């Protein structure tokens, strides 16, 4: 193991100029930032773990939530996130290669690899935006009970999820969204869901093929499916129609799941975004020959550390949001 003790007699320890840790000032400061940022992310993920253990029996199952791949219809749990993970690891690799090229003072290679890193980061941020949009839009719709629990619908014969549109009745004489002009103190309301609670309930009663799935997780790790009789009793608890997810309501289950999803992946996405911006700055600096004149490419290495850190965080976010 390398020793860190500086014993040179000609060296003044506090006079500057020596590096006990063998790393430059800038690199050490980057590590300071990374360690503190790692602690911030750990705080978020630990808080997520807290809420999850609190509602361990009713937490949403990730591969029933994230089931979409762009441009393709059907049920593909996890494939797209796996792709995103791979893109980010790949862009991490091109970043190391850029750092390596920088060490060898190969300008053109460093430019190429920085460019590929930026492209990888952009694909990742774009994918995350798509993932958010899909999550916010929702796919099947659900009913929220008086106690704030979510009831989802399943077709009894195939076991597939049933969308509200599959069975809800269209009843005449529905109310329209209220607007600001309807009352002096009224500021308007959010968009109404596609179906009213009454339409969903009546449609459910009329269609014997639809069963209710509750949030409760069985021993096999699946959500509990009620029988038709239990479902008919349970639908009476319904209070709201929920479509999609936001910070207040969430058709996938526990609303804390959506809150943490937006907060943690959003915070990570912001890191990726800033990483891409910084990478672009470095990219142009390399093209302009700044580091060639400076005599070393340490700046690429420092930014590389940040970029790898973003990848490192994603590995944990991926595990705790999509796998576990």
């Amino acid at each position, binding site marked *: 193991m*390398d020793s860190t003790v500086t014993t040179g007699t000609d060296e003044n320890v506090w006079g500057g100029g020596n590096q006990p840790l063998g790393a430059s000032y800038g690199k050490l400061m980057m590590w300071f930032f990374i360690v503190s940022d790692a602690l911030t992310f750990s705080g978020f993920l630990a808080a997520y773990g*807290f809420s999850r253990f609190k509602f361990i029996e009713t937490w949403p199952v990730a591969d029933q939530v994230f089931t979409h791949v762009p441009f393709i219809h059907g049920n593909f749990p996890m494939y797209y996130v796996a792709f995103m993970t791979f893109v980010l690891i790949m862009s991490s690799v091109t970043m190391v290669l850029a750092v390596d090229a920088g060490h060898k003072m190969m300008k053109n290679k460093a430019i190429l690899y920085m460019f590929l890193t930026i492209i990888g980061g952009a694909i990742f941020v774009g994918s995350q935006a798509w993932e958010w949009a899909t999550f916010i839009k929702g796919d099947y719709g659900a009913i929220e*009970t008086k106690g704030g629990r979510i009831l989802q619908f399943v077709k009894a014969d195939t076991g597939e999820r049933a969308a509200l549109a599959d069975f809800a009745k269209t009843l005449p004489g529905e109310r329209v969204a209220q607007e600001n002009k309807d009352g002096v103190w009224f500021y308007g309301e959010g968009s109404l869901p596609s179906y009213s609670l009454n339409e969903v309930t009546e449609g459910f009663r009329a269609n014997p093929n639809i069963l209710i799935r509750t949030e409760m997780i069985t021993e096999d790790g699946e959500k509990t499916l009620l029988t038709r009789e239990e479902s008919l009793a349970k639908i009476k608890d319904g209070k709201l129609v929920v479509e999609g997810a936001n910070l207040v309501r969430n058709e996938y289950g526990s609303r804390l799941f959506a809150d943490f999803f937006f907060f943690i992946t959003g915070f990570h996405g912001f890191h990726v975004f800033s990483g891409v911006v910084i990478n672009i700055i470095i990219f142009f600096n390399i093209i302009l020959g700044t580091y060639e004149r400076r005599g070393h490419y340490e700046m690429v*290495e420092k930014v590389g550390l940040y970029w790898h850190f973003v990848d490192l965080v994603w590995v944990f976010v991926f595990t705790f949001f999509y796998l576990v």
Partner: protein
Amino acid sequence: MSHEHKLEIFRGLLKFKSNTQKIWGVLIFLTIVTTVEVALGITKPHILVTTTIIGMKLLNWIFIILTLVKAYYIAWDFMHLRDEKSSLRRAIVWTPIFLVSYLIFILLFEADYIYNVFKDGFVTWNF
């Protein structure tokens, strides 16, 4: 910055000729680990889901351990902690490990207590 790289991974089991080659080697390893994770996540083998160790499914333990393995190789080879002085490496690695383990222990213990209050206490929440 012309320090030399340590070119061995898996405790010397695998030696690479150049730094570039090592990077690609680590990428292949990380890709394999991610593929295994996703495959396990999609198939969810029954035995791994039903077995629990210290209050958590065996499958989840596998995911967490594989994640830490990936984190190790990202930090050691991509962030080249392997090439840094051991004092710097230890300062960077052990500080978060110590603080985060403490935080996780406290929070998860407390969360489990609240779960039991919801479950056994006189609180109605599922209606």
